[in-house]
């Protein structure tokens, strides 16, 4: 990977606000204001071609919302996503945008919900091919067979329905569908969370093999730190809709800087049983409708002072934390 080249995916100041107000009549009768939830609040990151960038965080941190905005399933409230020089959000030539869409695909968490149960597998996998008008007639069948072989299934499996497959096999089908339009950039939203560990290992290995073979770029969303460590070249840690730390993969685990990252790493059950001393995590992720002032992590942070409660920290050199900036973190 030539690190100095321009990034493949650029996300700038991405925002998403959900209107979670009560219905109009309730608001009038109960004299309530409108309520908004900032699911993603000013997120910026870059992904280089051929690398795996992971977003990790607890539930409610906004990981999946980012994934959906990056592939264009959810309109953005602000900010911009640029993929290979073409802005997804701005005014660009529709034909160019369409061509770009073809190169982006998504793999979802639940392989039981993401495959149409009434369609045969061959139709599911061929859908992107038909949607983009890539191939016709017998070529489609041949291509579907190739794709099935590629993900470790048999070409004859195309005649079956999704319910005839196990969870891991369904996820393979979802991967085959993602590859059908020769996508280069795949957004994976918790691709193995619904799977057993031995099957998870199969899928993670498959995803790595395919990345090597086709030079795929992954945006990998997960709550599982060990999986992220195994897969990612670079990792962004999210907390309440913001990035708190971005770091090279292994470095995040050897030298975590943000207090939240440290806390998260401490909380992971330790299979090695090294008997390390751990700092007990206090509290839970707050309600995102009324997030804490300043740095949203300050009520749980052992290093917080009054500046943290007042002022939101900016991302400096890969970490957004006043304590790190001021050198208060040991």
């Amino acid at each position, binding site marked *: 990977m030539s690190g100095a080249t321009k990034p493949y995916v650029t996300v700038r100041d991405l925002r998403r606000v959900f209107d979670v107000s009560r219905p109009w009549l309730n608001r009038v009768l109960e004299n309530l204001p409108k309520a908004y939830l900032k699911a993603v609040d000013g997120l910026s990151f870059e992904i280089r071609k051929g690398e795996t960038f992971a977003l990790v965080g607890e539930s409610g941190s906004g990981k999946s919302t980012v994934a959906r905005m990056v592939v264009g399933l959810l309109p953005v409230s602000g900010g911009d996503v640029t993929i290979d020089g073409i802005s997804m959000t701005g005014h660009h030539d529709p034909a160019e945008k369409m061509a770009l869409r073809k190169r982006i695909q998504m793999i979802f968490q639940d392989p039981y919900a993401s495959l149409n149960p009434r369609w045969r597998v061959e139709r599911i996998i061929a859908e992107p091919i038909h949607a983009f008008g890539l191939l016709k007639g017998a070529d489609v069948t041949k291509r579907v067979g190739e794709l099935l072989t590629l993900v470790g299934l048999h070409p004859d499996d195309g005649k079956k329905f999704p319910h005839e497959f*196990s969870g891991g096999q369904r996820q393979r089908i979802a991967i085959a569908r993602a590859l059908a339009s020769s996508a280069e950039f795949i957004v994976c939203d918790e691709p193995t969370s619904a799977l*057993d560990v031995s099957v998870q*290992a199969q899928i993670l290995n498959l995803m790595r093999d395919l990345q090597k073979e086709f030079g795929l770029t992954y945006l990998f969303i997960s709550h599982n730190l060990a999986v992220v*460590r195994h897969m990612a070249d670079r990792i962004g840690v999210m907390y309440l809709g913001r990035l708190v730390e971005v770091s090279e993969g292994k470095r995040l*685990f050897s030298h975590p800087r943000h207090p939240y990252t440290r806390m998260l790493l401490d*909380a*992971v059950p*330790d*299979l090695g049983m090294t008997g390390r001393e751990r700092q007990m995590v206090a509290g839970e992720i707050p309600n995102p409708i009324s997030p804490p002032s300043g740095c949203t992590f300050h009520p749980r942070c052992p290093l917080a002072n009054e500046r943290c409660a007042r002022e939101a920290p900016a991302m400096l050199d890969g970490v957004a934390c006043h304590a790190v900036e001021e050198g208060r973190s040991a």
Partner: protein
Amino acid sequence: MSDPVISVRNLCVEFVTRRGVLRAIDNVSFDIAKGEVLGVVGESGAGKSVTGSAIIGLIEPPGRIAGGEILLHGKRIDNLPQEDMRRIRGRKVAMIFQDPLTSLNPLYRVGEQLIETILTHTDLSPSAARERAIALLAEVGIPAPDKRIDGYPHEFSGGMRQRVVIALALSCEPDFIVADEPTTALDVSVQAQIIALIKKLCRERGTAVMLVTHDMGVIAETADRVAVMYAGRVAEIGPVRDVVRHPLHPYARGLMGAIPTLETDAERLTQIPGAMPRLSNIPQGCAFNPRCDQAFDRCHVERPEPIEPQGENVEPGHRVACHLYTGGEGAR
């Protein structure tokens, strides 16, 4: 080891279906001592939860206990009439379920549910029961328990709800608790809090715990001993440190290698080919033989019994059901 709180002897559980009898648990035996946490791991369909439900007497038709014994303090409880079992359940044995939202009744305040349980099983007066409920909520780490006791389940976060469920399980100071995936629905930071809580309560009260989970990390962190289940059978059982560091059964070894960890740097994860067999289609001999790369003739015909391997450098009490260790032809 002192007298076990719970002994399971050759337990078999079957489900009668239209397509025949499915054996979900096949000849499972283990003991759990006072104050001990036995972790039970395995993939979906391995029979972990069914074992837990069987012990606590919650197997519903068409399921039935088809053989074996379950002993609580040396007395059989698997053949008790419904009424007697109901008295034991909650009082002597309790259960913590995976999803705290579905195991609490959304229409009742958490306090009412706690007090109801306490009144059912003890002679306390209603006001004393309320005191007791508040003390329990405080013990499981719920802030301002005297106010929160009047809250409804939906007013609690996931982690707090699971604490309430734990308080409910502890309300009558049971001797034995089945915790079925108690942290699976929770975030890692909350999971760590709940694990620490279960460990602490178990140590302080001397409760025996059967911790069912698919997360090996949780087991490594919490359990004293671990049983690895596969297709309704115990493949390997032993002290947690020994099993995690030196797994003997090929399945257990594959499972450990398949888990990405924060310490190791494997380029590829160990891959066990295939998937767990369906209950209707469990292979002859060792259930793992079609996926095992070390299987030999005997594995296809004869089912291995759990034994303590001779000559291997293992801790006492570490038993494995695998022909590789039974001696004779093909063994190492």
